[in-house]
């Protein structure tokens, strides 16, 4: 057992799967000799060779496109897009091909690929390096959209994503890459996809979040506990397909729910969760569902990014609204 941060956990998972499955390959920009701009693939090229750890030309659409071709003939490519802000050229390939390869060939071909990308704000990065576009992918039938919130979940969920027989979009919150370490046993044990994780049990209020925002959400839960409020905290982890059952079960118990995400509010994944609560959990709700999200604005440059991102104060404010509602 070793203490690793999130980016090291990603590296461990990649190395484990590369070692145990010869079909797994890794490709992307600067991921080979350089080990990735965030060092997620450091050491892999030396260990597994340039044939399996491929430095690609600077062409995001083609990174997705060739990964699709590789996957359709039996490889399990793990492709890296350097930042989610540079993923948009891949969308044609991902929506029109990766997501529907199995369906449109009646199962003759499939697309067991992972598209990894560092996401989110909070590291004082330049323009286009702080995006949270998970909702774009979560909307697409045939995809899985996964975001880990800790080193252990990054390790276990990435293993699961690589082993999954269908395409998985895997966002890694850059803010968490080196924020904290955690004991992670490098035993190849995957965590379940399509499942929420209850990080803390509580009676009075359900806090639902994913990715880096679990930091603020857990801090808010701590602060609420200090004032005698018992908050349950759920890490959604897989945004598509959504494990609504766990959230419904929690809200059936607490009656109050605050959804926290960094992505902009309108048509964000929080809207889907809130709609699910309205459709299936209305009678257990004691207060309107609250959303604490990024604003519907262009992600600002670093000087304003912490005003854009949901803060503990904003979560506490929403929690109070939910708790005080008669």
């Amino acid at each position, binding site marked *: 057992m070793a203490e690793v941060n999130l980016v090291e956990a990603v590296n461990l998972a990649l190395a484990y799967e590369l070692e145990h499955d010869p079909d797994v*390959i890794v490709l992307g920009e600067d991921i080979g000799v350089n080990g990735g701009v965030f060092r997620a693939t450091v050491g892999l090229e030396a260990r597994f060779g340039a*044939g*399996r750890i*491929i430095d*690609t*030309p600077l*062409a995001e*659409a*083609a990174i*997705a*496109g*060739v*990964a*699709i*071709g*590789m*996957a*359709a*003939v*039996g*490889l399990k*490519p793990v492709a890296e897009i350097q930042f989610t802000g540079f993923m948009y*050229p891949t969308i*044609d*390939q991902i929506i*029109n*091909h990766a997501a529907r390869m*199995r*369906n*449109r*060939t*009646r*199962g*003759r*071909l*499939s697309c067991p690929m992972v598209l990894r990308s560092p996401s989110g704000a909070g590291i004082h990065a330049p323009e286009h390096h702080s995006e949270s576009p998970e909702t774009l992918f979560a909307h697409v*039938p*045939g995809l899985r959209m996964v975001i880990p919130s800790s080193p252990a979940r990054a390790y276990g969920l990435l293993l699961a994503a690589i082993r999954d*027989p*269908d395409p998985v979009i895997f966002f890694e919150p850059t803010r968490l890459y080196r924020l904290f370490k955690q004991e992670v046993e490098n035993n190849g044990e995957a965590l379940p996809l*399509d499942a929420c994780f209850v990080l803390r049990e509580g009676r009075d209020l359900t806090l639902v979040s994913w990715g880096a925002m679990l930091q603020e959400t857990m801090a808010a839960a701590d602060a609420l506990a200090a004032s005698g409020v018992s908050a349950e905290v759920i890490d959604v982890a897989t945004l598509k*397909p*959504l*494990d*609504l*059952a766990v959230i419904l079960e929690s809200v059936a118990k607490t009656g109050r729910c605050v959804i926290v995400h960094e992505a902009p509010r309108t048509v964000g994944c929080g809207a889907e969760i809130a709609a699910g609560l309205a459709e299936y959990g209305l009678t257990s709700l004691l207060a309107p569902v609250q959303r604490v999200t990024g604003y519907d604005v262009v992600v600002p440059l670093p000087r304003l990014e912490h005003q854009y991102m949901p803060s503990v104060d904003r979560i506490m404010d929403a929690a109070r609204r939910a708790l005080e509602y008669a």
Partner: protein
Amino acid sequence: MTTVATFEIGYTQFIDSQGEPTQPLPPFASDPATLIALYRAMVLARAFDAKAIALQRTGKIGTFASALGQEAVGVGAASAMRPEDVLVPSYRDHPGQFVRGVTMVESLLYWGGDERGSGFAGPRHDFANCVPIGTQVCHAVGAAYAFKLRREPRAAVCLLGDGGTSRGDFYEGLNIAGVWKVPVVLIVNNNQWAISVPRSSQSAAKTLAQKAIAAGVEGRQIDGNDVIAVRHATEEALAKARAGQGPTLIEALTYRLGDHTTADDATRYRDAETVREQWQYEPIARLRNCLARRGAWDKDKEEALQRECAEQVNRAVDDYLAVPPHGPDAMFDYLYATLPPALEEQRAMARRFAPRAGETRG
């Protein structure tokens, strides 16, 4: 100034529009049976096209993209491939798909809006028709990389159109193919039209083949109405690919004698006289003339073949029309390897509201 790079693009033709050899034919063409098989495949494709258009006009299939006049491209390319190679086609490539073993019933199901049409009982590993233009170039390059990595003596053959060479996916895929030196053959069916946009408005480049040069890839141009040239060039490119010598781009010059699809009316944007002129270069008559000159073809054989192809197409149409409708589960069955629980309720809803047997054709 010093010249640091120069290039030239070769053009290959074996038989002219009269079926007259313009140079010694390649070895495979010495056997009339081989040429007759190519001829038959082109005649069958044309018979299928005519029937498919008629089916569209009578509401039996949806929009259909005819390959009229371009039969030599797909047939020549597919006939050069081995079964274990992978064809990565566009949506206008049924002539080549039929050679690969895709059935006419499957093609009719596809254009008839039935999910099962892309199931391909024959070439299970071939890619499905690609509609987003040029995006399939990247898939062929990725598949070819897999073959190279696993040291399999296989290659990917990608068919695309002239319009496709304007897209980023084409340039990006071609560029990577060059860098990775993968066993891929990109064949551009340059039929001179991307719906209404003529080749001259598509690119200022003198040839589309020369786009390969910028990527460090061999590019060559051939007479795409000469099925011998198409097969020969594809064979050479495949041999090179299997020998580890990397990719080739083949620009096959042909002409779209029909509309873009049944939803198009080409008289709106092109001159009927030009199309009539182009008919003298079409691939089927010239191969027939070539065979006749060699004493390998005559009127009786022609009539027998036309009859046989018409019967084969009619049987396929009958079989297509007899396929029972699929239920709503077809939307869900292959979305994921295992249907996520989150979708079970939606599938139940689709089942509940599905038309009962006999209500409408699904």
